[in-house]
């Protein structure tokens, strides 16, 4: 098992009428095959923009920083994602090697084309299968993700399926091309909690079976705790903490991670008061100087307002970007 994905200093801004808006600022991470990396953050943290960058799906006003590097290594071959030009080359990261599951499966399936036709089309395109083989594989995948009467569902439209079914079909479609990397962008957020538990269970089984790497994006730390091996916490475009999921949740180093955990209702102590992270998320047009979190940080000092904290390693593979964290600079 080697490094599948390597992202270094990814910086991305959008040109808008009100000036450039920085969405991702110097993000670096690695992902191995068979590994689940959780990317957790609130709205506006840049987690979805980071994910879309991997498939170059951001709109045309996106500007990548000069230092940005994204490398996908599969079967001994390195793909420099940012150098890809033209629809054919881009197909490698849009469906061949990388697949994506979105939050709202109703919006991701074409409403007027049957589920089956959409599955067959992408298999013909990415795997070069004949129509008959593609249909066989599609029905097999639908069965694998727990859809009953798969052959009948194959000929149905997205609106005929329930929310949980649609998300299962989405997963079946994403995995049928046997991608090396699966990006799951809030795949359970729109689902009821009982269905969410089923989908999480299914995704864990499939990692074991298919051995792909998963970048799992969510705002819910509970979902991360149940699915991910490692987690990166994002705030306003930066990774503020990164490490094995047990370490980060049990011994959070960054004040933002601690704040997120404290803000969650705990079922073991119903009487405990909920502690919000003070203040509001700043507008992307008014990015704070220094540490981006200092406007809401309960322990901010003078230097936090002026100096960007370096990322320091606290213990094995666990790092945080905070002036007040003891550790070795990376």
């Amino acid at each position: 098992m080697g490094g599948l994905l390597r992202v270094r200093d990814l910086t991305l801004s959008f040109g808008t009428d009100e000036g450039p808006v920085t969405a991702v600022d110097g993000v670096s991470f690695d992902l191995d095959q068979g590994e689940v990396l959780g990317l957790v953050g609130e709205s506006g943290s840049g987690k979805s923009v980071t994910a879309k960058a991997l498939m170059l799906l951001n709109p045309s006003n996106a500007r990548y920083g000069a230092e940005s590097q994204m490398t996908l290594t599969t079967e001994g071959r390195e793909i420099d994602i940012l150098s890809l030009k033209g629809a054919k080359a881009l197909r490698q990261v849009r469906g061949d090697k990388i697949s994506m599951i979105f939050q709202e499966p109703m919006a991701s399936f074409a409403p007027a084309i049957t589920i089956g036709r959409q599955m067959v089309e992408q298999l013909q395109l990415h795997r070069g299968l004949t129509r008959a083989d593609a249909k066989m594989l599609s029905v097999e995948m639908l069965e694998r993700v727990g859809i009953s009467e798969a052959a009948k569902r194959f000929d149905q439209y997205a609106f005929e399926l329930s929310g949980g079914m649609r998300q299962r079909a989405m997963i079946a479609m994403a995995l049928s091309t046997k991608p090396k990397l699966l990006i799951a962008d809030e795949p359970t957020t729109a689902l009821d909690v009982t269905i969410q538990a089923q989908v999480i269970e299914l995704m864990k089984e499939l990692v074991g079976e298919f051995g792909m790497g998963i970048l799992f994006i969510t705002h819910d730390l509970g979902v991360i705790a149940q699915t991910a091996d490692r987690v990166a916490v994002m705030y306003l475009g930066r990774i503020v903490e990164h490490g094995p999921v047990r370490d980060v949740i049990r011994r959070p180093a960054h004040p933002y991670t601690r704040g997120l955990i404290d803000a969650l209702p705990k079922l073991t102590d119903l009487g405990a008061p909920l502690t919000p992270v003070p203040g509001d998320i700043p507008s992307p047009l008014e990015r704070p100087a220094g540490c981006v979190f200092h406007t809401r940080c309960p322990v901010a000092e003078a230097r936090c307002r002026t100096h960007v904290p370096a990322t320091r390693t606290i213990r094995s593979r666990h790092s945080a970007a905070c002036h007040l964290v003891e550790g070795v600079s990376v």
Partner: protein
Amino acid sequence: MTGTAVTLRDLEVHYPLGRNMLGTPQVLKAVAGVTLDIPRGSFFGLVGESGSGKTTLGRATLAAAPVSAGRVTVTDRDGEVFDMARLDRAQEKRFRRRAQLIFQDPYAALSPRMTVRDIIAEPLEVMRLCKTRDEVNDRVRAIAAQCRLNIEHLRRFPHAFSGGQRQRISIARALVTNPDYIVADESVAALDVSIQADILNLLKQLQHDLGLTFLFISHDLSVVAHSCDHVAVMYLGRIVEVAPPRRLFAAPRHPYTRALISAIPSLDPDDRGRAERLEGEIPSPANPPSGCAFHTRCPMARDRCRAEAPALRQVGTGQRAACHFSEEMAASSVRTGARAGVPG
């Protein structure tokens, strides 16, 4: 003040679905026989999955859904009883001041073309509750301060605000007419975790300071458990269990409640896979199962459940459940490590 603020007796809300092949009219029973008392001054939680009828029930208590059978009444702090099925115009006018709704999505609920001041003042002006503009402004400023809004922000438009600030504007607008009863429908669901706690704390504070009765509708059992003093669990238009949250979590007496609790993703990574998973999905309310509506997904279901609908009955102090086999559940243990504190 004590007593009951909202009383529901065998309430049913039906929506017509057209006719079937034989020409018989079909109905969807969004609320299928609910009897419930919401005590005055309580923060009453209502949880359930999508399609459980929780929003319809909330709307029925605001005269915003048709009462097909049964009765729903709201009693205000002066003792006036409003019957939702027969409000005359004068009564409805008084009722609208007394009962308000806070919506889920603060991005969709506020007009982008109105200033924050105008948004909050609109109910006062529509209901002609103030004689002069100065009186309106004073009232708007007072309620804005109570909802922790900056007075300088009143001249701005909603687009300038974050989700948390917008939700505070929605709350101020709901409270400006000085109501007694508030339905908060998924009012924190669209907010980020770090802001959610702030809005919940604000709602609790306002409830306490202003003596309000809250019906807090949510799909998130952990949020409800933390904020509410009573929780009702709904499934396919029926209440399956009612209890104070501590009781509900320590000893759920309906298998659906137990499954909902165990489906909450635990914050402890080593707690993986111990949850009791529910098979399948919520059936369509247009075609509910016979007997106990939950039997198609219930791990404990037996023949009796398929034939006979269980009544909501007393199963413990302050706890009621609608399950034939509640007593068996009292003996069995339940996983309560969900979203547990993090073991050290």
